[in-house]
């Protein structure tokens, strides 16, 4: 079978070809510092661990740390630009290395160096395991490459007949709402024919001087009004005007019975007279 490299399970089992291409060279120089080919520090670590040619469970973390730091140093000597990730990992591994070499201090808060090493191993194993599965997955027969579905599917032709549900209520409601909106949009303000309060106060003030006795409010209303709206407006304004004049102390009001006529007389005059 002409398998592509993706299907080659061995790729993940063998030492990484990116590292071992210059197999003749010394251990330290054997690294091909081609970081472009690697996908981050974990990828490099996994590739390096493969060169130990042992089961991932038995890899020597110290050895791995040494290899990685060499890798990074060499890259720096060659003035290759290393992403920050690589340097962070290098710093962390250097820290781990020192912890592993020094006698462990009695400190319950700290995680032991062995535990940290075990976690790194776990991560490498996990990545290794998923890569194996990825290779196995891609080596499976694939639809459209190894096996095929019906090339000319006969689709089910569905003829849909739509019936529409709408009640007369919904229809009318909708139209009414439309009309409501339209009405709102069409509001026009007509100039209303009114008798203003200022007009009323002036008229009442002028006339009250002559009303020394109680006089019905009706008597003060202007005559000859035929617009009913204007009559209403005039009454309202004249009533308000009497209240206003009473407040100013220019008039006195009295009403003998509920809903009965309202009587007014001027006050200033009386005081002057009295």
């Amino acid at each position, binding site marked *: 079978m002409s398998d592509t490299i993706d299907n080659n399970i061995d790729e993940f089992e063998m030492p990484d070809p990116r590292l071992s291409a210059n197999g003749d060279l010394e251990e330290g120089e054997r690294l091909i510092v081609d970081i472009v080919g690697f996908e981050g520090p974990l990828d490099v670590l996994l590739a390096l661990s493969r060169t130990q040619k042992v089961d991932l469970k038995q890899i020597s973390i110290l050895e791995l740390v040494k290899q990685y730091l060499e890798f990074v140093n060499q890259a720096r000597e060659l003035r290759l630009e290393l992403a920050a990730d690589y340097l962070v990992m290098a710093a962390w591994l250097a820290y781990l290395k020192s912890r592993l070499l020094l006698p462990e201090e009695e400190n319950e808060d700290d995680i032991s160096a062995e535990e940290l090493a075990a976690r790194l191993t776990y991560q490498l194993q996990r990545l290794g395991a998923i890569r194996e599965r990825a290779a196995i997955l891609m080596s499976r027969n694939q639809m459209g490459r190894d096996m*095929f*579905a*019906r*090339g*000319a599917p*006969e*689709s*089910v*032709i*569905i*003829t*849909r*007949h*739509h*019936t*529409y*549900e*709408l009640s*007369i209520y*919904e*229809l*009318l*409601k*909708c*139209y*009414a709402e*439309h*009309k*409501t909106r*339209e*009405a709102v*949009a*069409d*509001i*026009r303000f007509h100039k209303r024919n009114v008798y203003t309060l200022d007009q009323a106060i002036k008229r009442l003030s002028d006339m009250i001087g002559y009303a020394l006795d109680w006089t019905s409010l009706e008597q003060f209303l202007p005559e000859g009004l035929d617009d009913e709206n204007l009559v209403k407006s005039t009454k309202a304004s004249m009533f308000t005007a009497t209240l206003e004049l009473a407040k100013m102390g220019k008039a006195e009001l009295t009403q003998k019975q509920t809903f009965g006529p309202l009587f007014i007389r001027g006050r200033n005059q009386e005081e002057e007279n009295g």
Partner: protein
Amino acid sequence: MDNQEQLRICEALLFASDRPLSSIALAEQLVEGSDVGAILSELQDKYSASGVNLVEVAGKWMFQTASDLAFLLRKEEEKERKLSRAAVETLAIIAYHQPVTRAEIEEIRGVGLSKGTLDVLLEATWVRPVGRRRTPGRPMTYGTSEEFLVHFGLNSVKDLPGVAELKATGFLDNVNTSRLNLLDDVKPNEEQPDLPMDDDESSSEEQVIS
């Protein structure tokens, strides 16, 4: 490879192909000297009683659903659908203002009318083209159909309640009574009667509908 293997390959090729295959094209995929004709006729026998048959069309071969089962591939579906709000409003405007052109509907609604909205109403057979306006461009006018009246149980469009009646039945609750006069503009367009449509126009419209 034995003959049976060649048959299996033929079978797979015909199954996976997106077009009918000639016996020559098939032969190219088989070991030299295979009797394609014999293989095809054996395959045809194998499938003759199945739900799928191997048929020869225009000198080429393909699998096809057995003709007595063709009904499986054709389904009629009755589906109840709900009209969009725009469609209901458009229908109402056509009902009250008919005959009315598309431009007039848009003006009344104050928004553009998407093609689909009118199509849905035409498909529902509630709305139909009724003529052409005697104005520049002779635009098509729309009105309601007999199906519309039947669906809503109306004898004629004159049975639709007027605006005052809508108010009386509470449909126009939110509208101030004093403005009702502003609403009372529902009167049919008193213009010259629209032109009747020619027969061919009418049929072309139906094509749009379908």
